[in-house]
Structures are given as C-alpha cells and as structure tokens.
C-alpha cells in the first residue's frame, strides 16, 4: 500500500522549514518560489496551511495533460511528469484545484511533489507534526486521532475554566 502525505493545518506554526528543504533537495537552492510545498498564510499570518499536491486518486492534472506526460509512479504513488513529453502548456497547473502543480520560475518547467521518491523531507523536518507521511489506509484514523486529541484538550480547558 502506498503512503501519502497528510496535512494538519492546525498544527502548522508557519516556520517554512519544509519549503527550504523541498527547494534545496529539488533545485539545489533555498527558494520558496521553487518549493513543491508552500505555507499559505492568512489574517496577518495567524492562519497557516501547508499546501502540497494531494496525489489525487483520480487526478485532474493527468486528464488535463494533452501530451500524456503525467503518470503515477507505482512505487511511491506520486503523480510525476515526464519532462521529455511535457510541452510546458501548463494545463495541469490550470486544472489543479489546490495549486498542487506549479511552474519553476528558473527552469520554466512544471513542478509537483514527487514524495521525494518515498522519503519526503518535508515530513521529516516538520518539527510539529503538521506534515506526516502515513500508509494511505491509515489516513482516516490518523485524522480521527488528531481530532480526538483536540476534542479532549478543549474539554479539559472547559473543565479547567470552572475551577
């Protein structure tokens, strides 16, 4: 069973360490504009969401690609681009509902998370567990456990207030 990147926006503190390691490992430079993962911040940076390709089960990028350059890596489950066939038309960029595919500003090629060939650095370096790499069939329970933790904490806070 392939593994998948699971994002917990509520755990993200917005430090951007993931962007640095992503761009460094893929492009040899430190540049958020070339990172496959980006932290999107809103409301004076209070709310942060790590945004990265979700490796959809039924990927729109693959369907949108007129030259059949996008394919699934069966080992990792990542949607990859065959740059030899890619014409750079950017249909995949337009089609993705999450901004999961971007364009590298230096090389003008499309870029998308390749799960670091099965060892995603972003999940390794995230200090707060906002990005985790889990077996796809454990995904739902993983999220439920995180929800349960929050539920308990808030319950404890409520009780705490009464004292």
């Amino acid at each position, binding site marked *: 069973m392939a593994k998948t990147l699971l994002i917990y926006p509520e755990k993200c*503190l917005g430090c951007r360490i993931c962007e640095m*390691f992503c*761009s460094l490992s893929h492009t040899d430079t*430190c*540049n958020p504009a070339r990172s496959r993962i980006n932290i999107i911040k809103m409301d004076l*940076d209070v709310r942060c969401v790590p945004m990265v390709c979700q490796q959809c089960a039924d990927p729109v990028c693959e369907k949108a690609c007129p030259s059949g350059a996008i394919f699934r890596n069966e080992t990792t489950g990542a949607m990859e681009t065959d740059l030899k066939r890619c014409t750079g038309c950017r249909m995949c960029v337009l089609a993705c509902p999450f901004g999961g595919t971007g364009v590298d500003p230096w090389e003008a090629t499309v870029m998308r998370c390749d799960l670091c060939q099965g060892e995603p650095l972003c999940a390794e370096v995230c200090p707060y567990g906002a990005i985790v790499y889990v077996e796809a069939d454990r995904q739902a329970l993983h999220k439920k456990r995180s929800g349960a933790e929050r539920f308990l904490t808030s319950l404890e806070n409520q009780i705490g207030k009464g004292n």
Partner: protein
Amino acid sequence: MDHQRIILKVDLCRKTVEKSSTAPFDGRFIGGRGIGSSLMLQLLPPGVDALGPENVLIFSTGPLSGTAAPASGRVDVTGKSPINDYHAVSNFGGFWGSEFSQAGYNHLVVQGAGEDPVYLSIDNDRVEFKDARHLWGLSTYETITTLREELRDPEIQVIAIGPGGENRVRYASINSSMGDAAGRMGMGAVMGSKKLKAVAVRGTRGVSLHDPKRFMEVARKTHRFLRESETFANFKISKANGDPMFSRKAEDQLTFGNFETGAWDKFGGLKTEQYFSKHKIRRTGCFGCPLQCMHLVQVSGGDFGLSRCMNFQSFLGTVWNDDLGAMWEAIVLANQYGLDSHETGGVIALMMELYQNGIITAGDTDGIPLERGNREAILQMIHKIARREGIGDILAEGPERAAQAIGGRAPDFVVAAKGLFPHGYQFQVVEGTSLMQAVSSGEPFQTYGTGVERTMDPEKPNLRLLAQAKALYGAEDAYLPGNYSEAKVRMVIDSEHRSRVPDLLGICLTSIVYVLKTVPDIHFLYDRQVELFNAATGRSISRDELFRAAERLVNLERSIDAREGLTRQNDTLPRRFYQPLDSGKNRGKVLNEQKMEEMKSTYYRLRGWDVETGLPTPEKLMELGLEEIVQGKRAGDEKPIRKTG
C-alpha cells in the same frame, strides 16, 4: 551557482539606489552584523545627530539567512542610537529577513532623509521609492495590511514604524509583519526621522549555495539536533514557552518597579498560565526556526498581537501591575504604536517611583496620578508617549532626558546603563552579568555564560556546568555568583563572542544559546554553524576563525563608539546596583564598586585594550586586521565628541 550577496544602498534625499557586492567585507567580517557595523564605520561621520539625515540605518541579514539552516530569519539593525549616541544593537525576526535574502540582498543601507514620507518597495531587482503620505499615522499592523493590499501580493513581507517612530520617540521600534520588532535603542525613531514609513520586500530569486548537498546534510543534522533537544521539548509543553516570568524561581532573579526591590508580594499570585491558555491562539516564531518561542494572543476578539518574555515583565512587575488584561492591552498598544515595551515600561516605572516619593504629582502628568500599578496611568502614558502629547512629549525622550526635564531630584531616581533601562535582573548578585552590562554600549544580550551565572544555585550547583567552567575558563568561579574572578571575566568575554557569532551569520542567537545550557558539548552547534557557512560560501574557515571574527566585531563596534567619545568613564552601572537588595531571597546582597572597577580593568586587559581609557589599543586593532581604524585615528580626521554626563 555561487553564493552572492549584495549591499543595497538607498539615499532618501537624492532618491538613488546603488548595489554593490559584500565581497570586499566577507574575509574579515563574515556577514550580518559584522558587515553592518563595518558599513557604519565607513558611512557614519562621527558626532552627527542621531535623528538627523546624516545618520545611517542599516539592516543586515547574513550568509545563512533565508536558507535551510535553522532559525535563519533574524535581521540585525544598526545605526547611531538616538538614546545614547552609540552604535545600536537591535534585532528582529519574522519573515522579512529571509524574503530580503531571497530577493538577493544581505544588507540595506538607508541614508539621507526625505521631505515627505515614503516607503521602499523591493521586488527582486526592482527597488522603488513610493509615496507614503497615506500611511503616515497608521499603526504598524494597519501599515502592513494596507501595503499587502496595495501591492497586491499577500506574500509581501513588511517592516514598518508606527506613530511612535514617526514622532521620533527615542525608543521607538521597527515592527515586522509577523509582529516581532527591533525594539531596543530607538531604530524606529531613526527610521521616522528619515521619513521612511516602511520597507516592503518580495524575493523569488532564492539563495544559492556553494555546495548544496553538503549544506543540506549539515542542515538536516542540525535541525534533528534541535528537535531532539531538551529546549525544544520545554518550549513544546510549556503553555508560556519556557518563559522566565513564569518560572517560580524567577522571582529570585528579577527586580520590580524601577529596580526598587527584589520581591513583590503579588508576583506569586499572577495567574499567567491560565490567562495564556485562555487567550493564546498558538505558538509562533520566525522563519526556519524549530523552537518557535513567541505567543500569538488574541483577547476577546479584539486585541491581537504577539509577545515574548521581556514584554511581560515590562508591563507587569516593572510597573507593579498584576492585572493581566492591562498587561496585554499595554503590549498591544506598544506593538501598534511601534514602541519598545521594555523602555516604555521603564519610563513609566521611573514616573511611578517619582510619584511614590512625592517628586511629582498628578498635576505634573496631565492630571493622571502615576500610582504604582494604576491601569489607566500605564495605558494613558503609552498613548501620550507615542503621540508626544502633554507629559508624553517629555517621556518620549527616554529616562535620562525626561528626568532632567522634570528637574529637582528626579535625575537621582534614573536607573539607566548608557541611557537605557536595563533588563530587570537582580544585578547585585551576578557580577559577570553586571560586568557585561557595564562594558556594553546598550542592551547586551545576556547570553550563554552570564545566563548560566544567573540560574546557577550555589547551594545546589550543576556539576556538569561547573566542570565546563573549569575547562573553558580555568575555574568554577566563572559560573558561580559571588566573585569577581579573572575566570569570570574570561567567561564574559567568551559569552560576548558566543552571542556575536550567530549575528555574523544571520542566525537567531536564542536558537543557539538557549539550547547550549542543556547539551553536553558546548561546541556542537557552533561547529555546525561553521560547516553551514563553509558549505554556503565555499570558504573553509575554522571555529577559531569565526570566533576571531566575533572578537574583531567587538573591537570594531567599540571603536565606532570611541569616535563618539566613549571611554572607560562611560562604562558605568546605575548607582542602585551598588545598593543592597532590600527584600527577597537575595536581601542584603550588593555589588562592590571597587571590585567591579578592578574587574573592568581585568576585562580591558584581557581584551588587549588600554586599561586607562578602556579602548582598543592600536596594537590590538592591527593584530585583528582593523588597520583602517588605526589609520583613521592617525590621520586625525575624526574628532572625538566628548559626551556630557
């Protein structure tokens, strides 16, 4: 691709932009604060008005800024301080520094002053002066939000001054979009005097590295080390982020009011943990940092802001306030107006002591009685200071000038080290911390060694650290309070270097010095910095060379201040530190002035400075390769300006 770093020089008077390489400075000064201070030496004529157009305002990131190196988001800000005329040591974090580095720059030098308010917009290569008349008067947060909308890019990082800086409050801050500020030493007032409201920056060029593979390997290792550190675990579980205010032991280290006493009966009853678990949104921190040492707090849907430990103390114990709601309101106001919380709290504390002693009455302060802990007094003073209204116009000048304006016995009550309200330690019991304060030109970041000294319990000493003191400085005394030993002086000198190394590189010093205390190998994090620096730049310097550059920086900054008239006579401590603590665990303890003077002599001697003047000797400067300073002096083109008082 090679690691290139650019100095961006803008002149607000002539509206010119100039770019040059850091290359001529790299060898001796490494980067960051090292190059920032060299630029200051080169560009600042001695004796000018800190709030005049001749002053320079320099923002420096370093060779590791905006990279995968941990905590690479800090910015050093320097210029001549309007509070004491010495070189300023001020630093802020957040995400501006990394964005600026990713736009391709390491230093921003602002010279001259505009007629009308402007802001600077930096978008990679494009640097523009833009009209800021519509922003003048806005709070720091409003300015940031407005600029992000106006420039139509939510990713833009902004630093801005608020009304405090516009009105040249001598301790105004420069605030970043994430809320962290360069608070100390009035850099916001310098920015205001230049009519520069904000600097917006956006960078997509990225930071190139000489050996990216090696860099990544070391960065990964260093990140893992920090994630597994005790400090990381403490920050993670603590509701208030390992904050000294919240440790029950803290009371033995802190003073209250205007350094009036070592104990405060309300301290133990402060329900800070409950307050923060109720109102805290989450932890926050700077670019690339695993530690995330700050709080984002929002009270009742309105007062939103960010804070760290120092601000808590400034608006609680310093002003005798036990109302946490008032504390938070005060912090938010200081953030919005762009004021240094610490100096603001200090000025209010001084006024409260004057009121308490009958030196002033409510009549002197626009009808507001400056009673200890009075909520209205605290909040109204902040409004008045930032707007320079009524008594605020006097208080905006800082503690020394304000007391002189009030006159009578008021100046006797000022507690200031080189014009600044010191950090609220019980200096009476920590000789090393006191020495570091005395020889500093402003706020010394009391790091590693002096931090150990302050937390060391002589009755139950940490034996591992005592062994470290012996190995590093020759005697256990270095870390133990209650002595004026040479080992302690060596510890202070080493601590000064330990705190400057991260400043040379663009790394947060908290991310190193806070962690050091809990790890067995004191060199580990510094060795990683050396490896990161070498992999980034292609150089191959050693740890010793990096520390040598830190020593060079100390000498360089001392020489800059010497041009402004600084000598040994200015290396004083507030008189109150030589009076015994009246209460608390350390009741009766006091610093011995004569021994402190002898300790200063030892310090100058070990630094290779002249013991009489307390200044670097030409021989020392030559040894460090600072020929230009020696030649400058010989050429006689610098007239030292003697300071009064």
